[in-house]
């Protein structure tokens, strides 16, 4: 039965892609954008751009107002106590680097950082490199057969030497929600700071950072139907106070002398230089749009499409799905067929999916794979998109076999 997406028409690029015979199933990499975002960008640039937080003139005041309104919207979206807990960065990657550098002074040789085996490179490499700089031990929490962090082992591995636990909320390869409540509670009890990489998780469902109980929560705008170049770092007030300033320059400074300077606290103290103003305003517009949707209807739609995807994959001979995906995406390999060959066949037929290691090389290697195909869904996808994918897959496999 055809399952339409009631929100498809809100995303003009979907129709444009369809005219080019492209079926977009790569939303975990980046999403298409709602008209509301396009309008906000056009309005901002069309009505007078200005730098924020520094000009006394009217355009500057308006830009600052719109920029700070986005901060308020983000605080509301995440249920943060205060907008001052929201730092804008240039992406999730730069937010995680900010943390790895900003917390560096808290480590002593021999301390431990715990991450999981499924981390995206963005939540692996900043910690790995910090560990190398400071002679720390990077502890990698293993997974169970479903692709979730193995809780029993994790609770053993996170101990009094663990200074930071940094884990994904939702795996970008396996589509599995991670057992955060137990992990975070245990890490806190051990005196560790907790960092949640919400790059995938934030896109599906609403998440309350206070209920989650993490010290830091990180995500990027472009995966949440917002513009690129904007990342969000939420921090508990106390945790933000622990961060040392990282990047230096305009706007983050309080007083500057030739030989010394003092810096502002969060958030502005961590937003050196001109921020991505239009992007931040655009993200605010995207959040307004998303907040206007019926959350339950979105969740039901995504869950139903995801089931359709999993059923279709299970019906096909030789298809092996990685882990037990719960939301939004599924990665798979096919016995005896190279994933690059499947990718070639799908690309030729206008199916936009992701092939390869998905920026999680150690995870794929651990699974004994060079790569996999990932199909990922957005709220604009409908069942015809999946139908076209399955037909293309069958056609490609027929040629290959």
């Amino acid at each position, binding site marked *: 039965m055809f399952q339409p997406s009631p929100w498809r028409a809100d995303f003009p690029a979907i129709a444009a892609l369809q005219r080019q015979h492209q079926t977009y199933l790569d939303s975990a990499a980046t999403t298409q954008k709602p008209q509301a975002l396009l309008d906000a960008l056009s309005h901002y640039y069309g009505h007078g751009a200005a730098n924020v937080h520094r000009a006394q003139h009217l355009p500057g005041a308006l830009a600052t107002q719109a920029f700070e309104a986005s901060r308020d919207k983000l605080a509301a979206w995440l249920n943060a106590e205060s907008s001052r807990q929201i730092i804008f960065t240039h992406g999730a990657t730069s937010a995680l680097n900010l943390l790895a550098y900003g917390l560096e002074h808290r480590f002593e040789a021999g301390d431990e950082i715990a991450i999981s085996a499924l981390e995206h490179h963005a939540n692996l490499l900043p910690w790995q490199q910090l560990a190398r700089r400071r002679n720390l031990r990077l502890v990698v929490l293993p997974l169970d057969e479903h692709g979730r962090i193995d809780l029993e082992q994790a609770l053993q591995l996170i101990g009094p030497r663990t200074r930071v636990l940094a884990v994904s909320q939702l795996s970008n390869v396996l589509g599995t929600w991670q057992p955060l409540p137990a992990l975070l509670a245990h890490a806190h009890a051990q005196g560790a700071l907790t960092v949640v990489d919400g790059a995938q998780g934030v896109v599906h469902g609403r998440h309350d950072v206070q209920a989650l109980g993490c010290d830091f929560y990180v995500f990027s705008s472009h995966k949440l139907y917002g513009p690129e170049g904007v990342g969000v770092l939420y921090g508990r007030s106390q945790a933000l106070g622990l961060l040392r300033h990282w990047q230096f320059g305009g706007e983050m400074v309080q007083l500057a002398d030739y030989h010394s300077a003092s810096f502002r606290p969060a958030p502005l103290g961590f937003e050196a230089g001109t921020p991505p103003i239009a992007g931040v305003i655009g993200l605010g517009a995207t959040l307004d749009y998303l907040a206007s949707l019926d959350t339950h209807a979105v969740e039901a739609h995504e869950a139903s499409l995801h089931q359709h995807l999993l059923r279709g994959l299970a019906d096909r001979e030789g298809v092996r799905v990685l882990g037990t995906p719960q939301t939004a995406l599924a990665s798979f390999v096919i016995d005896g067929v*190279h*994933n*690059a*060959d499947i990718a*070639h066949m799908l690309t030729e037929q206008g199916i936009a999916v992701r*092939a390869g290691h998905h920026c999680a090389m150690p995870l794929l290697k651990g699974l004994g794979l*060079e790569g996999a195909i990932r199909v990922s869904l957005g709220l604009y996808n409908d069942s015809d998109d999946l139908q076209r994918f399955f037909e293309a897959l069958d056609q490609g496999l027929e040629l290959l076999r």
Partner: protein
Amino acid sequence: MSLPVQAQEALASFELARGWEQRARLLMQWGDRLEPLSEAEKVEANRVHGCESLVWLVAEHVEGQWRFKASSDARLLRGLLALLLTRVQGLASAELAGLDLREWFTQLGLERQLSPSRSNGLHAVLLRMAELAANC
């Protein structure tokens, strides 16, 4: 400069190909014609990185002429490599450096396989060849 015989043959068959399916079939047929690499040749030194697939390029420069062997674990990429080798086999460094390989794949109707955003590895192989031609 006239095309090598095998390259002429490749061009003739791809010019006749209609649609992506026929091109894919041809690619697989050409891939099957690649001379297999020995295990000794599938070493790290011959690996071409920057590809999602495993790709090896074995290059020998004998009496002023380049002799290439190549392979991959991905089937369609083997086809692309075979088509590449038909065009460059036996060339001198100056000829190789002067050759527009993008043009060659465009003639074959396969230019989209060369985009740097494609992780299939062909792009990386061309870069490696250009490097070899420049240094020898």
